[in-house]
Structures are given as structure tokens and as C-alpha cells.
């Protein structure tokens, strides 16, 4: 029966590939090419890093294996957290579950099918990102191709084990607290865990690994390198298996690989057995919604609409979206991750080894691009998907007497406040931490406020140009063709912003260095004009294209 369930997935995949013809095929190939370029860039970065570490006298090989064990440990932790979040959907809320549960399929077989699906979805992107690292490691250590096969051999039970943690967790939690509320709480806990791991990892200052002088005693450093990263976790067993393979120690390699496979088999046998007892109760409970008591009093937006009748439609759509966002646990988990990102960002700024005041001011200026990137990345989660997330309910607005322009304006209004706030907070605090001078502080703050606005407009415009009302979650939109175009446009815009301001900033530094007549006002005017044209184009073009597309969009 499990074969049949796998076969349906294979057939669906095959049909999806067969349906790729013409423009969709070209689009996907372009997407694939960009992905390959990114993997190559990752490979180049890893290769440089590992080459440097391997070249360190005496402890070089130890350093690279230590880094490998850390990479595998992080991968292991990330797969666990992903599997907690993903298993809630795959095991309890997949669209096909009701059908599958009604079929004469053994419950445990159905569970195994969904468990493997969970492992696949929670690990494939991480494994893809780690693969360039492994190739670089093999190249730097000049290992034969068998090394890569040995890696693939041991990584299989490794991801199965990592995924099993999340699956077991979800299954037990749903068994003990069978309600859809449990899913929301799990998502929030998952995001909190990721944020905690991310912040804690950054606060340990991993850059110290590259600076042996940071530890006072050499012996202490060597001890640190030789100590297992986490001796009882599969990530360490994989590292040891790979070290053994590279040393030609076959006995040790097979013993570690054996431990990995035995542990994976044991865990899945246990889950197979458990699922027969507890899976059904959890699935049944997942259909229950907790009681909710909505209020019937007038909302603030409705009170405003009474006063300003011209904004009634805008305010109506606004309160609808505000309530939907506030009640969706997925957005809260995203907000937690963003908060962690901001903390790490500001911590990293504080840790920058900058000596002079001028250097600090220069970094503050360049920080516009980095903060802008953060705003754009957050926009990819919130702003760009805003139109598409109307989903199947879009018929309500499409049939209502409201224009597509109004729908887009309202989505912009919802996205604008967090974008502006995040951009302004990042720049204001960074400037304070760096002690940037007044000119740079004012320039960077004004620029990020304008950039946050432009990037938000761009996100809504391109979101309307590439809408997908059939999508099930935000992640599908983020990794879509439209999402890629949005990020590319935002990056291009930010590069040009820094480009147009570079000359006036250069004049400012010339003044600080004491040059006579540093300011060329015609040059400043030219840069200001170029900046104004750039912003106008970045706002008008995506907005108009998106609006035109949304107006002609059929449902």
C-alpha cells in the first residue's frame, strides 16, 4: 500500500513536469539557472573558507572538521524545527487527508507516507544548501568521489532521524491536546525555538573560530577543537563517519553508519507502532476548532468611516485585513522571527571592528543597502504575498463595488507601517551604535524611510502582477518566480540608491577631511534628480503593471 501512495506522488510530479511547456518551462529553467548560480556562489564562499582553515598550521584539518560538525549540528537542529512546523500540516491538515482517511488504508501506512513527506519537505532545501559545503570540503581535502557517495549514504538516516523528532513531537502534542489551537501554539513555539537558536548562536560569536588568538591558551583552543560538538547526536556520528572515510578507516565508517541506520530503523519502528494507537485521536481532534467569541461593537475604522465617508471602502478592507492578520498564528510566528533578525542585526553592527569615526560614518551610509535588504526580505513575506493571500476569497472583493486600485492601496496601507518602522529602527539604532555623524544620520534615516515606502509599493505592485490565488501558504509565494523578480528589483533599486548618493557622500567626507570647496552643487543637483527619477520609476512602473494585471484578472 505504501508503494501505491508513493506512486501517486511520483505520478503527480511526473505530470507536473510534463505540463511544463513554452513560457512556464522557460520560466522554470530561468529559475533553475539562478538557483544553480546561487549554489555555485555558495560553493565558492565555502571553498575559500575551508581552504583558509585547512591552511592554518598544525590545527588546519581539525578546524575544518570542527566546522563540519557545527554545520551538521545546525542542519540537524534546523531540520528538527522545520519538521515540527511542517509535520503539523502534513500529518493533520493536508488537503488530501480527509480523502486518504476515508480510504481502506492501514492507518500506520498512511502515517508513514505523511512522515516521509514531512522529512522531505523539512530537509530538502537545507540539504541543497549544505551540498556545496560538502563538495568544497571534498575538494579542499582532496578526497576521491567515493567521499560524496559516503556522505549521501549517511545523510539519509541523518535526516530521517532529525525529521522524526518533529514528527514524534507533533504526534504526541496532538494526542494530548487534540485541537486546532495546538497547531497554532506549536507554530509559535517553533518560531520561538528558531529565534532562540539563531540569537544564541550569534551571541556565541562563532567568528572566534577563525581567530585562534581570541582564546587565551593555545591548549584550550586545541581542546575545544578536539571535543565532540554533540557526541550523542546524529550530526556527530555523520561527522565521525566522514572523518573515518577520509582516513580510510572502513571499520569506523561502517560502525558509525550502522549506528545511524539502526537508530533510524528503531525510531521509525517505534513511530509506526505508536501511530496505530495515537494518530487517529490527534487527527480527529485537529478538526475541532476552539470556541471563539467575537465582539459586535463598532470597530475604530468604522467610527472613522462615519466621519470620513470618502475613505469608507478603504477603511472597510483595512479592518477586515487587520482582524485576519491578528488572528492568524502564522503571522505571529513570522513576527517573532523578524524580531530575532533585528536583534542579531543590531548585535552584528555593534560587533563590527571599526576604529575611526569616519569609517563608522561610512559604514552607516552603506548600512542603508543592508537595512533596505532586510526591509525587502521582510516584504517578501508580508507585502509581496498580500494580494495573493486573498486566495479563494478574492471573489468577494472582485464581485464587490471596489476597484483593484483600492484593494492595492489598502494592502499597501497594511504593509507600510511595519516596513517603515523596521527600516527606521534598524537605521536609527545602527547609527547610534556606530556613532554616525549628523549628516550621515539624517541622510540614511530619510533614505531608508523613502526606500521602505518604495519597496512596499514595489511589493504590492509586483504581487498584483504575479498573483496566485490558488496558493496554500506564503512559502510557495516566496519561492515563486514573482517573488524572485520582486527581490531582484528591490536589490537593483537599493544598489542604484546607494549609487546616486555616493557622490554627495564623497563630498561630505571631503569636507570632513578639510578639502577647500568640497561641494559641487551641480553634481548634488544631478544626483538628487537621478534619485527622484529612480524613486518615481520604482513606484510607478510596478504599481501600474500590477494594477493593469489585477484589473483584467479572471477568477
Amino acid at each position: 500500500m505504501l508503494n501505491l501512495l508513493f506512486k501517486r506522488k511520483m505520478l503527480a510530479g511526473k505530470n507536473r513536469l510534463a505540463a511544463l511547456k513554452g513560457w512556464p518551462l522557460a520560466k522554470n529553467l530561468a529559475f533553475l539557472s539562478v538557483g544553480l548560480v546561487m549554489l555555485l556562489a555558495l560553493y565558492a564562499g565555502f571553498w575559500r573558507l575551508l581552504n583558509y582553515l585547512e591552511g592554518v598550521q598544525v590545527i588546519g584539518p581539525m578546524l575544518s572538521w570542527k566546522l563540519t560538525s557545527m554545520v551538521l549540528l545546525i542542519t540537524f537542529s534546523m531540520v528538527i524545527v522545520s519538521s515540527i512546523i511542517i509535520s503539523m500540516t502534513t500529518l493533520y491538515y493536508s488537503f488530501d487527508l480527509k480523502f486518504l482517511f476515508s480510504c481502506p488504508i492501514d492507518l500506520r501506512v498512511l502515517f508513514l507516507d505523511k512522515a516521509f513527506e514531512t522529512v522531505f519537505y523539512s530537509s530538502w532545501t537545507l540539504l541543497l544548501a549544505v551540498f556545496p559545503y560538502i563538495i568544497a570540503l571534498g575538494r579542499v581535502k582532496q578526497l576521491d568521489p567515493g567521499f560524496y557517495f559516503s556522505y549521501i549514504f549517511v545523510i539519509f538516516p541523518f535526516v530521517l532521524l532529525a525529521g522524526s523528532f518533529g514528527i514524534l513531537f507533533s504526534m504526541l502534542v496532538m494526542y494530548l491536546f487534540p485541537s486546532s489551537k495546538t497547531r497554532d501554539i506549536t507554530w509559535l513555539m517553533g518560531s520561538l525555538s528558531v529565534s532562540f537558536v539563531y540569537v544564541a548562536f550569534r551571541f556565541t560569536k562563532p567568528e572566534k573560530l577563525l581567530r585562534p588568538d581570541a582564546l587565551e591558551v593555545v591548549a584550550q583552543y586545541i581542546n575545544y577543537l578536539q571535543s565532540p560538538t554533540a557526541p550523542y547526536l546524529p550530526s556527530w556520528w555523520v561527522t565521525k563517519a566522514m572523518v573515518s572515510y577520509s582516513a580510510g578507516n572502513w571499520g569506523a565508517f561502517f560502525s558509525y553508519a550502522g549506528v545511524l541506520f539502526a537508530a533510524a530503523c528503531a525510531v521509525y519502528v517505534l513511530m509506526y507502532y505508536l501511530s496505530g494507537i495515537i494518530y487517529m485521536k490527534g487527527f480527529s481532534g485537529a478538526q475541532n476548532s476552539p470556541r471563539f467569541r467575537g465582539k459586535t461593537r463598532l470597530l475604530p475604522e468604522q467610527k472613522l468611516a462615519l466621519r470620513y465617508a470618502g475613505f469608507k471602502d478603504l477603511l472597510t478592507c483595512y479592518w477586515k485585513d487587520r482582524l485576519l492578520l491578528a488572528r492568524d498564528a502564522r503571522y505571529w510566528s513570522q513576527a517573532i522571527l523578524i524580531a530575532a533578525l533585528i536583534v542579531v542585526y543590531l548585535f552584528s553592527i555593534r560587533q563590527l571592528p571599526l576604529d575611526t569615526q569616519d569609517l563608522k560614518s561610512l559604514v552607516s551610509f552603506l548600512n542603508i543597502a543592508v537595512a533596505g535588504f532586510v526591509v525587502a526580505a521582510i516584504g517578501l513575506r508580508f507585502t509581496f504575498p498580500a494580494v495573493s493571500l486573498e486566495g479563494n476569497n478574492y471573489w468577494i472583493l472582485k464581485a464587490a463595488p471596489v476597484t483593484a486600485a483600492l484593494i492595492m492601496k489598502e494592502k499597501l496601507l497594511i504593509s507600510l507601517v511595519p516596513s517603515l518602522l523596521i527600516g527606521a529602527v534598524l537605521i536609527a539604532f545602527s547609527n547610534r551604535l556606530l556613532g554616525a555623524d549628523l549628516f550621515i544620520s539624517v541622510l540614511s534615516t530619510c533614505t531608508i524611510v523613502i526606500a521602505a515606502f518604495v519597496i512596499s509599493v514595489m511589493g504590492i505592485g509586483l504581487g498584483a502582477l504575479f498573483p496566485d490565488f490558488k496558493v496554500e501558504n506564503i512559502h510557495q509565494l516566496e519561492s515563486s518566480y514573482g517573488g524572485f523578480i520582486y527581490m531582484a528589483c528591490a536589490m537593483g533599486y537599493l544598489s542604484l540608491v546607494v549609487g546616486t548618493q555616493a557622490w554627495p557622500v564623497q563630498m561630505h567626507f571631503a569636507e570632513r577631511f578639510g578639502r577647500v570647496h568640497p561641494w559641487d552643487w551641480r553634481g548634488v543637483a544631478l544626483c538628487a534628480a537621478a534619485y527622484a527619477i529612480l524613486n518615481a520609476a520604482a513606484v510607478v512602473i510596478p504599481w501600474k503593471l500590477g494594477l493593469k494585471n489585477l484589473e483584467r484578472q479572471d477568477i
Partner: protein
Amino acid sequence: MIKIQNLTKTFGAYKAVDNLSLDIAAGEIFGFLGPNGAGKTTTVKILSGIMKPAGGRVLVGGYDIVESPLEAKKIIAYIPDEPFVYPKLTGFEFLRFIGDIYSVPYGEQAGRIPELLDIFELSAVSGELLEAYSHGMKQKLLIAGVLLRKPRVALFDEPTVGLDPKSIRRFKELLLDIARNGAAVFMCTHILDMAEKLCTSVGIIYRGSLIAKGTVAEVKKMASGGSGGRSLEEVFLELTE
């Protein structure tokens, strides 16, 4: 009230609606019948303004749905075949949203919403999120939304799917009320018995083309030159064979 002139809709090479022309007067209940895939849903989507026609013209209350969509949509109420609603709004909030977006004054909403919730036996769950509602409850909520805005044109696509027998009876009564108040009703349905008893006129669409149109009695006579003594179901099956 609804004027359809040579309406055509194509999806690639496939013609979903082919040169359709219809006139539906105020106070009329028009039953739009046809087998699966005949073009009923496509037609009603075009009438509601959520889909653009490839050719022809649709006038609703004198407004061209393509040229003046906002004016037309203000007087239309539409319920699709699948009752998709915002899962994180409560039943009460959903009706309030419909009331706000269709400019029903707050004072009127305050009186009508509880009344409609009561009529459709949704008062007890009006504070619950819509994700907890059944298919039938969502359908009843959408019908309540139609009644809240007092439309001049009501478009229904399989409106009774998921409704319990009591709600179906209530829906029929309300449909007659809507028409009595001067609105034109356009209803796609597979329930031929309901169409026969309720509709003042019917049309049968088959493979995108209108193959019969008129009062129920007139349509019955069209098939095989019959005397009109047969049921609408028998006539429908003969025409769409």
C-alpha cells in the same frame, strides 16, 4: 434588468459560452439549466463582473458590466458555487463587512444583521470564526449577506448545495420575496424540480449554446414538439442528450 447580447467566452481554443443572448426582467426568477461543463458558471461569473467576456455585452440595471463595473456591482448580489469566506472572521463580522462594502447604513445593519442571523438560525454561532462553520452554514451566511444589501439583481450558482431541507424551503420563500420586491433573479441549478416550481422562465445551455428558452411550459413544448405534459427533467434529458 439583465440584458445579455451575443455573449462569448473562450479559454484558449475552447468556447465555454457561444453567442448567448438573454433578457431577464425585474421581478423575474430565471433558472439557468444545463449539464456539467455546459457554461452556466462561466456565464454567471461574467454577469457578476469577476470574469471578463471575450465578446458580446452584458447590461445589468442599464450598466455595462465591463464599461461601468462599479455601478453594476453596487446593485448585484452574487453567490458562487463554492462558499469561500474569510476563515478568521466571525459570522457577525462577515455580514458587517458585506454591509460596509455595499454601503448599507450602520443603523440598518444594526437591526438587519441580528434579524438575518436569526432567520438562518446562525445567531448562536455568530461570534464563532467562519473556519468552524460547515458548508451549509457558510452558504446560509452568504444568502443572509445577499438579503442584507437588498440587491436589484441576484445571481446564484447552485445556491442550495449543502443546505438542509428546512433552509432550502426558507431559501425558496426568500427568493420569491426578492423577486416580489422587484429584483431580477438569475439562478444556475441542477435541481430541476425547484426550477420547475419556482422559476418564471428557464433557459437550457448545452456546450456553450442556449438550446431552449422561455417559460417552463414553453420549454416543455419545445422538446419533440411535445404537448407539455412531461416533466422538466424529461425535457432537459431529451434536449441535452
